[in-house]
């Protein structure tokens, strides 16, 4: 932040200076320009430059510590002053008059904004000069649900409910089996050919259904045991898991 840093000054010296300080060199220039008490458009730039340089000189004499940009501005103004005073150099671009005009424009811009700010602050401000209603009822926006459901949703839901309500009936699918009765009958009939030891499995019907074959094997084995009990056949098995063989008794 550019600002003047003042060391303690004696009262008589302070007469020359605004103790409040300035917000930068442009601010100081504007204050000095205002001191000319003419419209900024009519301001004498040369006079202004003199005033500024004089101020900087005073500050230096008083050993005031000036921020760098004040000194930069002083150097530039000193340059501008010499250009304005020296015989014109038509080659110089921009011309010293042009530079002076730009400085004047800048001062006018800042001045305009300063004034505009003051006018804004003085306007009829809400909550200070004009007041809204202090206790309004307020407006409310309420969300209202519009429920969506299709006829399909409804029927599907009921269908599933009904499906859920059906009493559970456990149906066992039909499976081809050889009953024990069938097996006894079949093995009994086939015993006529079993004059020698013959594998029980040879008695089984030909089938490509492995489940049916298992059923036939189990039933035929039981049938063989039953027929053996009746004394109608003999059974032998040489060792565990070996072939079961039968022969007519």
């Amino acid at each position, binding site marked *: 932040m550019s600002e003047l840093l003042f060391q303690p000054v004696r009262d008589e010296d302070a007469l020359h200076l605004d103790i409040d300080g300035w917000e930068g060199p442009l601010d100081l220039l504007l204050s000095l320009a205002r001191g000319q008490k003419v419209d900024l458009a009519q301001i004498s730039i040369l006079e202004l430059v003199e005033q500024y340089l004089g101020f900087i000189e005073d500050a230096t004499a008083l050993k005031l510590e000036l921020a760098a940009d004040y000194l930069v501005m002083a150097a530039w103004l000193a340059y501008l002053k010499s250009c304005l005073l020296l015989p014109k150099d038509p080659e110089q671009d921009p011309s010293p008059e042009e530079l002076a005009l730009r400085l004047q424009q800048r001062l006018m811009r800042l001045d305009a904004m300063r004034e505009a700010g003051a006018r804004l602050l003085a306007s009829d401000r809400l909550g200070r000069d004009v007041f809204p209603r202090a206790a309004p*009822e*307020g407006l409310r*926006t309420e969300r209202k649900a519009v*429920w*969506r*459901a299709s006829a399909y949703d*409804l*029927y599907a839901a009921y269908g*599933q*409910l009904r499906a859920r309500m059906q009493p559970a009936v456990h149906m066992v699918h039909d499976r081809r089996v050889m009953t024990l009765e069938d097996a006894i009958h079949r093995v009994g009939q086939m015993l006529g050919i079993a004059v020698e030891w013959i594998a029980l499995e040879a008695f089984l019907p030909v089938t490509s259904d492995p489940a049916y074959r298992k059923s036939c094997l189990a039933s035929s084995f039981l049938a063989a045991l039953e027929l053996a009990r009746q004394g109608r056949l003999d059974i032998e098995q040489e060792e565990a898991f070996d072939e079961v063989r039968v022969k007519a008794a």
Partner: protein
Amino acid sequence: MNEFVRAVEAVLFASDEPLTVEDIAAHVGDGDVKAALEELAAHYDARGIELVERGKRWHFQTASDLAHLLRREREEPRRLSRAATETLAIIAYHEPVSRAEIEAIRGVQISKGTLDVLMEAGWVRTGARRETPGRPLTYATTRGFLTHFGLESRRDLPGIDDLKAAGLLDPLDDDALQLQLEGDDEVETEDEDA
């Protein structure tokens, strides 16, 4: 318009609470506050704003017959939850039906919100009480229900055979099974259907 009446009007407007005649006088200074109040009350008589006196205090308020304007409804489409859809279906097929009967059919309790939603949607209404112990309330569908689902009358609801033919009586899918297992946590939360 009289300057004094203007001042009374402004003071009443800017106040955050009803004001007595004395309160007003403290702001506006000398003058006939009562007469000003009467003039204002008459002026606002048939407007959108009215000046009212309540317990010796005066304030402006929105005209009471326009209160409905201060609330604006914005419609938001929301999908009916599964629980609500099933409940609606049971009511449609079995009406009049009590809550206990609905629960017996669904196999789970229904939350209060479920029936509220159906009534809010305008599809279900309460019917007569059943003349059995406890005199339970029954529920039935409305004309709005028929309109929404494109039915002339309840007789147009597809029968069990129709549902079966449409494959809607097929064994439970996993979702339905899940629903059954969850059973009691039948809470109709807002988010569920969002």
